[in-house]
């Protein structure tokens, strides 16, 4: 695929991510840090770190909710962690779902938490897919540019 087409695709993807509220201004900041800092792999690195960490946290929460007696404090702590993490990459939707999740933790409702976990998971997977597509496009663009030289 031609370089321009790739770029358009990437541009459109990012645009939609912003407009759908998947990512917010913080993500923009990361992009700026990358561009101004002259370190092309920065966003990729950060995004990857986030995805790995979020995956881990979600798994921990799931395990905690499977226990016969749920420690809602621990669940809440993890949700808080995930919230902080999502804020780092500007994962706005995930962040919001975390905030909702914490409500259920306060109420100590296992069902509520399980539901909230499902929502968080969905949002996270959605975002992760988009991030992965974004990274793939970037790689392709880089490869294309490199070939042109």
């Amino acid at each position, binding site marked *: 695929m031609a370089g321009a087409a790739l770029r358009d695709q990437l541009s459109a993807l990012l645009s939609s991510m912003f407009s759908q509220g998947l990512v917010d201004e*913080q993500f923009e*900041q*990361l992009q700026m*840090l990358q561009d*101004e*800092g002259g*370190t092309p792999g*920065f966003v990729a*690195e*950060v995004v990857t*770190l*986030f995805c790995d*960490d979020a995956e881990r946290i979600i798994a921990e929460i799931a395990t905690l909710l499977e226990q016969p007696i749920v420690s809602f404090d621990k669940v809440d*702590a993890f949700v*808080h*962690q995930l*919230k*902080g*993490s999502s*804020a*780092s*990459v*500007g994962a706005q939707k995930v962040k919001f779902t975390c905030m909702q999740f914490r409500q259920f933790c306060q109420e100590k409702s296992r069902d509520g938490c399980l539901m909230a976990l499902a929502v968080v998971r969905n949002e996270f997977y959605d975002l992760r897919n988009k991030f992965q597509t974004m990274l793939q496009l970037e790689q392709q663009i880089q490869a294309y540019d490199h070939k042109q030289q």
Partner: protein
Amino acid sequence: MDAATAFPYGLRVLVVDDDPTWLKILEKMLRKCSYEVTTCGLARVALDILRERKNKFDIVISDVNMPDMDGFKLLEHIGLEMDLPVIMMSIDGETSRVMKGVQHGACDYLLKPVRMKELRNIWQHVYRKKMHEVKEIEGHDSCDDLQILRNGFEGLDDKSLFMRSDSDTMRKRKDFVNAVNQIGFDKVGPKKILDLMNVPGLTRENVASHLQKYRLYLSRLQKQNEERILGAARQDFSHKGTSENLNLRSSFQEQPSNIPNGYPHASQNIQTQANMQDSQLEDTKSTVPLPLPDKKEVYMEGDGRDFSDVKPSLMDCIKSTSLALTCTVDSISVQLSDSGTTSADGDLKFSSVDGLSSIKNCCFDQINSQGPLRPSQEPSIIGCTELASLPDDQPGYPYPLQGVSFDNIPLSSFDFSHYNDATMILSGLQNNWYDDDLEFSSETMDYPLIDGRLFA
């Protein structure tokens, strides 16, 4: 010094955050500010790093919520031990949290996501702190005492501001301290000092102002001393408190290399120390590893980690702390030998003490064998054990002073005439403070009083 290397460029920042993503981002942002960044994912490790490389950092930025240690606790530790400015960060901006941060001594509280411009400005906290320290000690006598803070400004390139080597000044200062010791701290007065010092051209006003500064310095130390002991005893993770006391004790002391007794280096000598129970005061003096010519070596690697498995019961805390208070050499020997022989998961090798009462007895037995320092030691121990019963979460100010009155310890209880420069009581410390052979940092200044008071 050109613009590129001028302050605040190269400001040395330690970032502590359990979130790897944030660590990466903050590191990038801080590097962009031309700061020197060290990142750390664990609060405990951060403390180790800070203890190891005491003077290598200017400021710490830490997240509030961390799994291994509460950010506020870390904040307290850093404030007590290293006296570095600490900035707290959190995604949670609730007023109560921010207030808690301020109460615990944070110099700022940033909300995540943090912006570049906020990070760019953090140098002001470093600068402000230095300015305060200077003002505290400085009188109208100008730059004399700025030299003491010289090493506290290591990180800054504006060393020229504070550089002043004046051997004449140092000698005068030494004479001053000697005079104060001779007269006796509570009886001292400018005229008496002046007469004793017998320095031509020195006026009573000079001496008076210096005495004033000196008193301020001592009262500040006393206050910090109190806070440290209370803070240390209050900790949940009791061993941390213990190791801090030990760290404090073993780290601050610096004696000029010309001490007659030739105090051995901590790492060699401590391990050969027998139980202190029966030692005379003289023996104590000669075996306590005070004068560590190389300050950097004092903080042994194992300090924080060796106590990582101590049961976090307050009882143990008091045991350890009391032991630390009284069995100076024992504690240090435990500390250091542990660092050699114990793995990170090793057991604490304190000589076992059963029950608090026997500790008290142990403490007092040792105190009794140590002569004049006894009166000054008792209140400290009592303070510690009384603190054992304090609940962890005190409302309001984090350092309740119930049952502890360090104010009852008059400085005159130290019988200065018993000690020469080589001892670790106040006069010795005073000499340390003034000695031009010492590499003295602002952190070091904070420690002397603790040792002089609590450890014989």
